[in-house]
C-alpha cells in the first residue's frame, strides 16, 4: 500500500462527499414537488406525460396500490425486454445480424435488467444488436434505477409523515426520478465520458490492420450513453463482455474516476434526501457514515490484500512490491482495481474493471461480503437506502429497548407487524444465496460450469448467487453461467432478491406511514450519534453477515490460509 494509493482513494471519496448535500437536497426538492432550476424546462414535459398517461399527479396511493403499480410496470418492462431480445433479428439497427437470444438466456437477461441486477450471462458485443442494447437494455437501465429511487422515496415518506394513509404516487415518482434525476445527469456524465475517450456511434465495428499486418475487427457502438446510466443507475451491465475493464468502456484513469464517482453519487446522496424529507438531516448523515465506514474498511482490506500479492509469485522471482496484478488492467493498477471492486459490490452496481476471480482470496472475499451484507454500502440507487433503513429498524429494535422504551425509529414505533415483515425481507438473502449454493455445490451438472475446484470453486458458486440475489450483477468469472440451471436459478434469485424484498418493505412503509410520529425527547433512543452508527455497523455485520461465516470459512478464508501454506486453486 502506498500513500499515493490512499490519496487516490481519498480524492474519490472527497468528490463524492462534496456532492451529497447539493444532490441530496435537489432530490428532496424534486420528490416533494418543489421548484428546481430544471423545472422551467422539464415542468411542461412532466405535465405532458401525466396528461398523456391520464395520471393525476395530486392523487396519491397507499402502499398496496403503489406496490401493485410498481409490479405491473416492471412486469410489462420484463415482457417488453424479453420480446425485444427474442425478436431482435426482425428489428433494425442490427449491423452484425444477430439472431434471437435463446429463451433461458432471454429470461435471465430480461429479469436481470428489470431488477437492476445486470447479471450478464452473455457477451454484449457478440449477442446483442444495437437496437436491443439501446431500446431494451438501456431503457431498463433507466427504469429499474428509477423504480429503486421511487420505492426508496415512498419508504422515506413513511417516516416523514404522521398518520398518513398514502405514501406517494408511483407514476409521479417514476417520472420525476427519470426526468429530473437520471436523464440530466446521464447527459452530463455521457458527455464527460465522450470527452475522456469513450466511443458514441451507431457503427458496429471498425476494421483495422494491426502493426503485424493482420486484419482485426474492433467492436464499437453507442457506448458512452449506455455507460453513463450503467454507472449512475448502479446497473453495471456493460456494453462489452469485459465490462469496464474494456478500453472503450473505461479507457483511462480519468474515465475510471468518473465511473466510480458516478456509481456512488446518487446512492450516497439519497440518505441526505431521506434526512431532508424526514426533517432531520443528521439522521441521513448517520446512515451514510455507517455505509461509508464499512465500505472504506472493505476498500482497505482489498487494497491491503492485493498490494500484498500472492506469496507463491515471489517464489518465482516476481517482484512482490507491485502486488497482485493478475486479472487487472495495468492502467488502473492494484489500488484502482481494489477500490472499484469494493465500491461496485458495496453498491449493487456490478460493473467491474478487473476480474474478481483473480484477486487474492481475501481481496476476493471483500466483494463477496459486500454483496452478502445486503447491498446497503451504500447500495443500489434507492434499494441501498431502503435496505439500510430496514437494518436501522432492526438495530433500533434489538438495542432500542436498552434505553427503557419500546423501540422507535424517527418517532415511529417498531412493533410486531413491522418485525414480521422485516424478517420476511431479510430471510430472502440466506434462503437464495445459501440454498441455491448448497444445491449447486452438490449437483454434478452445476459443478461442470466451474473453472476451478476446491474452495475457489465454492467461492465462484457463492459469488454467483450472492450477486444475483443482491441484484449486484458482477461476476466472479470462472463460472460458465449460461446454462439452463444457472440461467433459471439465478433468474429466480434475482427476482426474489428484488421483489420478495420490496413487497414486505413497502408493507412496512404503509404501516409506518399510518403511525403517529412521537416527538423526540431526552428519553428517545438517539439515532444520529456516532454510537448509533457503531451499533448499526455491528448489527449489519452480526445480523446481516454472521450467517454467511461458515460458507465464507469454506470458501475464501480457507483458500487464503491454504495460499499462505503455498497451495492454490
Amino acid at each position, binding site marked *: 500500500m502506498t500513500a499515493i494509493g490512499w490519496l487516490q482513494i481519498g480524492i474519490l471519496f472527497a468528490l463524492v462527499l462534496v456532492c451529497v448535500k447539493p444532490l441530496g437536497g435537489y432530490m428532496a426538492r424534486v420528490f416533494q414537488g418543489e421548484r428546481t432550476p430544471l423545472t422551467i424546462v422539464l415542468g411542461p414535459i412532466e405535465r405532458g406525460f401525466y396528461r398523456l398517461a391520464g395520471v393525476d399527479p395530486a392523487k396519491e396511493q397507499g402502499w398496496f396500490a403503489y406496490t401493485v403499480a410498481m409490479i405491473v410496470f416492471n412486469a410489462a418492462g420484463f415482457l417488453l425486454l424479453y420480446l425485444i431480445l427474442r425478436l431482435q433479428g426482425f428489428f433494425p439497427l442490427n449491423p452484425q445480424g444477430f439472431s434471437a437470444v435463446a429463451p433461458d438466456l432471454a429470461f435471465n437477461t430480461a429479469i436481470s435488467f428489470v431488477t437492476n441486477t445486470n447479471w450478464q450471462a452473455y457477451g454484449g458485443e457478440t449477442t446483442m444488436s444495437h437496437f436491443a442494447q439501446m431500446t431494451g437494455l438501456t431503457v431498463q437501465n433507466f427504469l429499474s434505477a428509477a423504480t429503486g429511487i421511487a420505492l426508496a422515496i415512498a419508504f422515506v415518506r413513511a417516516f416523514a409523515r404522521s398518520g398518513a394513509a398514502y405514501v406517494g404516487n408511483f407514476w409521479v415518482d417514476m417520472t420525476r426520478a427519470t426526468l429530473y434525476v437520471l436523464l440530466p445527469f446521464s447527459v452530463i456524465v455521457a458527455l464527460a465520458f465522450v470527452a475522456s475517450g469513450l466511443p458514441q456511434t451507431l457503427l458496429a465495428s471498425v476494421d483495422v490492420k494491426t502493426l503485424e499486418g493482420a486484419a482485426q475487427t474492433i467492436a464499437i457502438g453507442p457506448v458512452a450513453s449506455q455507460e453513463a446510466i450503467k454507472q449512475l443507475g448502479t446497473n453495471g451491465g456493460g456494453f462489452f463482455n469485459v465490462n469496464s475493464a474494456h478500453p472503450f468502456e473505461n479507457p483511462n484513469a480519468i474515465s475510471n474516476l468518473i465511473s466510480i464517482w458516478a456509481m456512488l453519487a446518487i446512492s450516497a446522496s439519497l440518505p441526505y434526501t431521506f434526512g431532508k424529507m424526514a426533517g432531520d438531516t443528521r439522521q441521513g448523515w448517520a446512515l451514510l457514515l455507517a455505509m461509508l465506514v464499512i465500505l472504506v474498511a472493505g476498500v482497505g482490506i482489498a487494497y491491503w490484500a492485493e498490494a500484498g500479492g500472492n506469496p507463491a509469485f515471489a517464489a518465482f522471482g516476481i517482484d512482490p512490491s507491485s502486488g497482485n496484478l493478475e486479472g487487472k488492467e495495468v492502467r488502473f493498477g492494484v489500488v484502482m482495481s481494489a477500490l472499484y471492486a469494493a465500491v461496485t459490490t458495496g453498491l449493487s452496481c456490478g460493473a467491474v474493471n478487473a476480474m474478481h476471480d483473480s484477486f487474492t482470496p481475501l481481496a476476493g472475499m471483500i466483494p463477496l461480503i459486500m454483496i452478502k451484507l445486503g447491498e446497503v454500502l451504500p447500495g443500489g440507487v434507492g434499494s441501498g437506502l431502503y435496505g439500510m433503513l430496514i437494518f436501522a429498524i432492526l438495530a433500533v429494535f434489538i438495542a432500542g429497548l436498552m434505553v*427503557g*422504551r419500546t423501540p422507535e425509529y424517527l418517532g415511529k414505533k417498531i412493533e410486531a407487524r413491522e418485525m414480521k415483515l422485516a*424478517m420476511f425481507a431479510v430471510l430472502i438473502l440466506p434462503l437464495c444465496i445459501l440454498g441455491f449454493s448448497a444445491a449447486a455445490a452438490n449437483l454434478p451438472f452445476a459443478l461442470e460450469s466451474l473453472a476451478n475446484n476446491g474452495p475457489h470453486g*465454492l467461492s465462484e458458486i457463492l459469488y454467483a448467487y450472492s450477486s444475483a440475489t443482491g441484484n449486484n450483477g458482477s461476476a466472479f468469472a470462472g463460472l460458465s453461467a449460461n446454462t439452463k440451471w444457472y440461467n433459471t436459478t439465478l433468474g429466480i434469485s434475482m427476482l426474489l432478491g428484488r421483489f420478495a424484498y420490496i413487497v414486505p418493505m413497502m408493507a412496512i412503509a404503509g404501516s409506518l406511514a399510518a403511525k403517529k410520529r412521537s416527538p423526540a425527547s*431526552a428519553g428517545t433512543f438517539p439515532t444520529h450519534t456516532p*454510537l448509533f452508527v457503531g451499533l448499526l455497523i455491528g448489527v449489519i455485520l452480526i445480523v446481516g453477515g*454472521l450467517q454467511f461465516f461458515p*460458507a465464507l470459512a469454506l470458501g475464501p478464508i*480457507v483458500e487464503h490460509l491454504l495460499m499462505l501454506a503455498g497451495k492454490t486453486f
Partner: protein
Amino acid sequence: MASKLQAASLFDPAIFWRASIDALIKLDPRKLVRNPVIFVTEIVAAVVTAIFVREFVTGSGDPAFSGQIAAWLWFTVLFANFAEAVAEGRGKAQAATLRGMRSNVMAKRLAVPGIVDEAVEHIAADELRIGDIVLVEAGDLIPADGEIVEGVATVNEAAITGESAPVIREAGGDRSAVTGGTTVVSDWVKVKVTAEAGSTFLDRMIALVEGAERQKTPNELALSILLSGMTLIFLIAVATLWGLAGYSGTELSLTVLIALLVTLIPTTIGGLLSAIGIAGMDRLIRFNVIATSGRAVEAAGDVDTLLLDKTGTITFGNRQATEIIPVAGVQEKEAVEAAWLASLADETAEGRSIVSLAQEKYNLSATAKSNDMKLIVFSASTRLSGVDVGGHKLRKGAVDAVLKFCANEGNKTEPANFRGAVDRIAQSGGTPLALADGARLLGVIHLKDVVKGEIKERFGELRRMGIRTVMVTGDNPVTAAAIASEAGVDDFIAEATPEDKLRYIREQQANGRLIAMCGDGTNDAPALAQADVGVAMQTGTQAAREAGNMVDLDSNPTKLIEVVEIGKQLLMTRGSLTTFSIANDVAKYFAIIPALFVVTYPELQALNVMHLATPKSAILSAVIFNALIIIALIPLALRGVQYRSAGAASLLRRNLLIYGLGGILLPFAGIKLVDLTVAVLGLA
C-alpha cells in the same frame, strides 16, 4: 408497609423445588410451542437423544459425545423452563397468601331490596349475583365487590392493601366502593354486589399475580418474531452448511450440526424472555401496584408525559402558614401573638400550622389558654375566626372579610404596606389571610401550598429521562403557575375539570405522546381509560378502578413515578439480554467452525483463536456454555438490570458497552474456561 406482600428471596428453597418440578412439567411440547426458540431446542435435543440411543445400542459412532451433547441440550431447555418457573413461583407464593383471605364466607342477602327492616337470608358468598343487595355488619367480611347503597362504616382493608388503619366507606360519592375480602369494623352498610364469584377484584388479583392470564405483551410478541426469524435464518445457514461441507469433502454428523444450530439461535434471550416479563409484573406487585396486563407495564416504560394531581403528589395537600407580616406601626411580636391566639382554637390544618409557625419560627412560648377566652368559630357567612380575650377582638380570615369586619368596627383605612403584602402573597401563589384586633389591622398571614421537599429533584430526574410532568390543579392560573414553577413541572392545567383532563390527554396523544395519570373519582374514569397508563387508587370508586389499567393498593399518587421506572427497567432488561444473546454468536462461531472442518482443512486451525483442546471439546464447550449462561443470567432477568435515571444517550452508551461489547467478549473467556474444565475432566 409492614404487612405488604413480601417478595420471596430469589432462591427460596420452597420456590426452588417447586420450580424444578415445574421445569419438567413445562417440557410438554404443546406448552413449549409458545416459545419457538426453546421449542426448536427441545426438538433437536430429542433428535440427538435418538442418535445417542442408536449409537449406544449399535456401538457405532461416538455415544459418549452424542450422549453429552443430548444431555446439555436437555439442560438448555430445562434451564429456560426453570427460569420461567422461578419467576412464576414467586407470584404463586403471593397468590397463596391472597387466596387464604378468600375464605368461604356467608352473605346476608336482603330478600326485598330497598326496604329497611326486611328479613335477611344467609347464603354462600359465591352464590351471590350481580345486583343482589347484602347487609354487612360490624365484624363481618364483605362477601363480594360492590357499591354501598346505604350506611356508613369503617372498613379494614388490610387484606388487600396491607394498611391496617381502617378507612371510612359510605354511600354516595367517591368512597362508596368496597372490596370482597375486607372486614367491616364498626357500623353497618348495605352493599350492592357488582362482581360475581370468580371475577371479583381479589380473584382478578390472584389470577394476575399467578400469571394465569399471562399473554405476550406487544413488544414481547415482536421480539418473539425477531427471535423466530433469527432461528429460521440460522436453520438455513446450518442446513446449507451440510451441503457446502459435502462439496468440500467433509461429512458432517447431525449431532455437530445440531450443536452449531443450538449455539447460534438466541436461546439465552429465548429462554429468559417470559421470566423477564413475569418478574417485571412482580416488581410492580411488590410496590403494591397491580397491573391488569403486562401491556400496561410496557406502556409505563414508554410514557413521556405524567399527569400529576397537585394535592398529595406535588404539595402536602394542606396550605400551611409560612410567614406573618406585621403592617406598618405594628410590632412583629404583637402580630405573631395575635395570630397565635386567634388560631389556638382553630382545629383546621391551616389553623394548626399558624400555631406551630408562631411557636417554632417566632419562638413564641406556649402559654396555657386563659379562661376568659371566647372562641369565635369560623362560619361561612362571616368567613372569620378568632377569639375575644381581655377586650381584644382578634380575628383572622379572608382579606375582604377582615376588612369588612374592621369597617364595621369603625376603621376604613388600610395601613401603608398592607395592600402590598397581600398582593405579593397572591402573586406568589399563596393565600393571604388578614389579621385584625378590633378596628386595627395588625398584619397578613402568608398561607402557602408547601411543595414536597424532594419533588423538584425528582422532576429533574424525570426530565433527564425525557419525561414531562404536568400538574393538574383546581387552583386559579396565578396560584397554579407559582406552584408549578416552584415544583419545577413542565406544564400545568389550572382550574382543571375532569373534562379538561380528558381533553388534554387526547391532545397530547394526537401529538404522539403517551400519557400516564392517576385518579380515584368516578369523574376521573374517562381520563383514566383514555390515558395510556391509568393508575386508579384502591380507595377510589369502582368505576375508577375499572377504567384504569393499574390499581395502586396504597392509594399513593406519587407512585406513578415508580411505576414508570419499573416499566423502563423491564424494557431495559429485555433489550440488554437480547443484545447480549445475539452478540454471543461471534465467539461460538470461532469455537465451532474450525472444529467442524479441521480434518479436511487443517489450516482452519488458525481460526481457533481460543486454542480449544480438541474439536469435540470445542463443540461440547460451546454447547455447555450456551446452557450455563441461561442459569447464570436468571438472577439478572428476575432482578432487572441496574436502573439509573439518565438520558437515553447515556443509558445506551452504558448498556451497549456492558451487554453489547461484553456479549461479544465474555463468551470467548467463558467457552475457554469450560473447555479447560472439559479437558481436565476428560469429557471429550
